[in-house]
């Protein structure tokens, strides 16, 4: 009889499933059916219990072997590779505090805090997160996080369109292609047009909803956010600035330039690169616009006894209340990554974020100046006098892809090949995780590879 409860399959007793055969039997009895199939009457009989081509289950030890071997196939710092990739995902040292707090099951295995009485931990952390993002960006308000940087940027442009009631969005030509690409995917059926704006533009169409600026831009260079913001405002547009949060330890905050909306990829703030995700999008804006903000927002309030507490707020913007008129369709977001960012910011603190930005600056500039000395290699920003952070474009003596192939033989993952945007251009990124010895090894390899061309 036991087998009938699982409809012909041998009933499986698995570590993730506590019920035993006799318990299943008993429950089916209470329900009043003979077998599971008695509960499945609504499923078309001809399609019930289809044949499936899946493996049998593995023990934990076997699982660890299978996935461990997949991990071992990848080249990473732990397998002895140096890497000079950046372009939106950055290698930074993650403090032990971040990993330690990330192991707290009470944070990891909770749901979105819809019941605030049972979620004050998540909620207070979210409020801290919003505070950190405001402090970093110099903005008035921030939400509790978006999916990632590019979607935050896309949602910011859509928000600018809502706020200005305009349908044309300008994006600076120096932005990472992933920003306009995501914006296109996010807006293509909403009648939004996207136009490219040059960083040195002195006028813009007068029907722009916003200028979207990445600074430091895709090439690592700081844009003149102040001037561009003024240009936007003069034309009734908003200024949307996408930043690298690490750079904010050193460079002026967008808030100082009257920027309207700031977005960023939160990954550099304590989040593993993890082949691209999950990350967290940072989103901050002027207080005037909060009711147009997408995403979850946590507010402070009091309980019936007058004690401070935190709760989700301004929920009428959200899909579960406003449905097709919501400011965004986002539901499950990135709270846990927000926790990582919050612990990271608390750990680095005022001095740490400054020291970190400086250290990254020093290392990247050292690398740039050493590379710039090499025959055949030019660092563009050094040639033009641009101010850069973290990453810079190297014009190489031959195709970056050929150079990268040679580098790989020396266990070096070179910079990003951006020859589609800049002739023989390689976008090189250096952070605090590269030692001088690592940089010197890279420079020496470039030199040798360049000479052999």
């Amino acid at each position, binding site marked *: 009889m036991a087998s009938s409860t699982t409809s012909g399959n041998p009933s499986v007793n698995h570590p993730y499933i506590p019920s035993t055969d006799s318990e299943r039997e008993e429950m089916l009895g209470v329900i009043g059916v003979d077998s599971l199939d008695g509960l499945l009457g*609504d499923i078309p009989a001809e399609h019930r219990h289809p044949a499936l081509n899946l493996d049998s289950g593995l023990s934990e030890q076997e699982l660890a072997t299978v996935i461990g071997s997949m991990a071992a196939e990848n080249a990473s710092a732990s397998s002895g590779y140096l890497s000079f990739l950046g372009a*939106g995902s950055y290698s930074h040292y993650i403090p032990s505090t971040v990993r330690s707090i990330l192991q707290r099951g009470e944070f990891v295995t909770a749901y979105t805090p819809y*019941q605030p009485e*049972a979620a004050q931990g998540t909620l207070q952390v979210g409020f801290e997160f919003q505070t950190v993002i405001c402090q970093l960006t110099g903005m008035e308000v921030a939400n509790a996080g978006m999916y990632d940087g590019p979607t935050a940027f896309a949602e910011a442009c859509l928000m600018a369109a809502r706020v200005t009631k305009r349908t044309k969005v300008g994006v600076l030509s120096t932005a990472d292609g992933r920003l306009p690409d995501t914006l296109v995917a996010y807006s293509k059926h909403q009648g939004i047009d996207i136009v490219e704006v040059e960083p040195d533009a002195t006028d813009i169409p007068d029907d722009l909803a916003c200028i979207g600026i990445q600074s430091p831009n895709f090439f690592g260079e700081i844009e003149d956010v102040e001037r561009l913001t003024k240009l936007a405002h003069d034309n009734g547009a908003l200024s949307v600035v996408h930043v690298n949060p690490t750079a904010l330890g050193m460079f002026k905050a967008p808030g100082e330039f009257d920027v309207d909306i700031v977005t960023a990829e939160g990954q550099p703030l304590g989040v593993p690169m993890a082949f691209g995700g*999950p990350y967290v999008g940072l989103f901050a804006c002027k207080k005037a616009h909060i009711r147009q903000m997408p995403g979850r927002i946590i507010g402070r309030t009091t309980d019936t006894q007058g004690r401070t507490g935190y709760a989700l707020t301004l929920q009428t913007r959200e899909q579960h209340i406003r449905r097709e008129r919501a400011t965004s369709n986002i539901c499950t977001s990135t709270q846990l990554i927000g926790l990582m960012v919050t612990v990271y910011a608390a750990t680095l603190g005022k001095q740490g974020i400054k020291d970190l930005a400086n250290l990254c600056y020093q290392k990247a500039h050292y690398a740039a100046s050493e590379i710039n000395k090499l025959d055949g290699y030019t660092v563009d920003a050094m040639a033009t006098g641009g101010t850069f952070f973290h990453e810079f474009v190297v014009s190489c003596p031959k195709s970056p892809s050929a150079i990268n192939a040679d580098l790989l033989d020396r266990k070096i993952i070179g910079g990003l090949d951006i020859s589609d945007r800049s002739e023989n251009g390689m976008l090189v990124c250096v952070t605090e995780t590269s030692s001088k010895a690592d940089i010197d090894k890279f420079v020496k390899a470039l030199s040798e590879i360049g000479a052999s061309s």
Partner: protein
Amino acid sequence: MSITANAGDIDRRLLMDRSVAGRKAFTLPESDVPSQDLPDSSFLRDDVVLPEVSQLEVIRYFSVLSQLNFSIDTNFYPLGSCTMKYNPKINDELSNLPGLADIHPLQPDDTVQGAIRLLKNLQDDLGEITGLPGVSLAPLAGAQGEYAGLLIARAYHEAKNDSKRTVAIVPDSAHGTNPASAAMAGLDVVTVRSDDQGNVDVDNLRELANENTAVFMLTIPSTLGLFEPNILEITKIVHDAGGLVYADGANLNALLGLVKLVDLGVDICHSNLHKTFSTPHGGGGPGSGPVMVTDELAKFLPKPVAIQTEDGYALGTPEQSVGTINGFHGSFSIAARAFAYIKALGLEGLQSVSENAIISANYIQAKLRDKYNLAADRYCMHETVLSATKQKKRGVAGLDIAKRLLDFGIHAPTMYFPLIVDEALMVEPTESESKETLDHFIAVMRQIDDEIDASPELIHEAPHDLPVTRLDEATAARKPVLRWTADE
């Protein structure tokens, strides 16, 4: 001033209020490169005012805060539609292996063969489970999966130059993300009614489906935890009208190995890996919402898609891809967890997941139906929607019952969803809770019903023993305080 003596009464001050100038929790290494000139000071900012606390304060602050949460690791959490099941620890561990956590998304394919192989295997398994073989793991959550799916539907019609199909038909019981995603995709949302059994009103659907229909979005099983008895008829109506059928797969936990979505007439679906495939919810993400489609639609999938080539594995872009819906390749380390989950359970285990989830929900329903009304009085799938209308008449709302449950260390069910059920309390026990836990829940729910007459104030003022009582959410929204400020 007397200090409150109560171990439960913890210090709720924010980090900035604990900050002391000069304290630190971390030290950066000294620079080992020759000192470089700084940019012009006009570029430079003053200090970022972040917390200045010691390392112990960081650990203690967040550790104590964590204890204020209910969570799967500490509580029964029967939150309907959310599938709060056990999140295996081994999955967290494996996804944090340096070879998976420390790889850059733009590394050359040949340096990340293991990672892409993992993605490809997961795509194949999800394709097999749903019967929809075109899979992209790019979407970062269910809602983004929906949006990607709708982009695909639009691209499909556009490719056929069928430009008038601008309507999404959505049941009145649908989750809010469905209409919100449809609106983002530039579709007009038309609502189809549910009948008194909680099923899609087939006649109403027949009226609505026409040459403007781009897509019909159906949650399977429905948000009432029910399987549409007329599913084949429904999908046929849509297909006959030239529309596509989108399945919201948030409830896929009920169907593993029991039925393939493709066999029901589904063209496109998403799955929330953070529900059915047990990746932790993290207090509201990160998640992952892969989109699965028929072979015919695969060319429209968002990028990237993992493919097998002659030399190994690669990330590719489908021919007519709807494009880039986010930064890189989706939630990779969430995908790794879901992959581990599928491998650990295997075919029989996955079937057992759904079987046990269904039995548990029906058991609760059977044991509570004399006290609580049901949204639909028939066997449910993996969740049961109770309706506290009888209790409401006796002076206690669904919300009060939900809050009272917290006093017993049980998380509240999903409240007031789906919108079509009065005083809805949507209970999803999942397969990972023991019968003993279900019996405890049942006993508590029955006791709360008794309390309505015996001691209603216990319910109205609940919860009693948590870090806060009910919060003033109205003031929070009217006068929003959204961050710490110096001048408080």
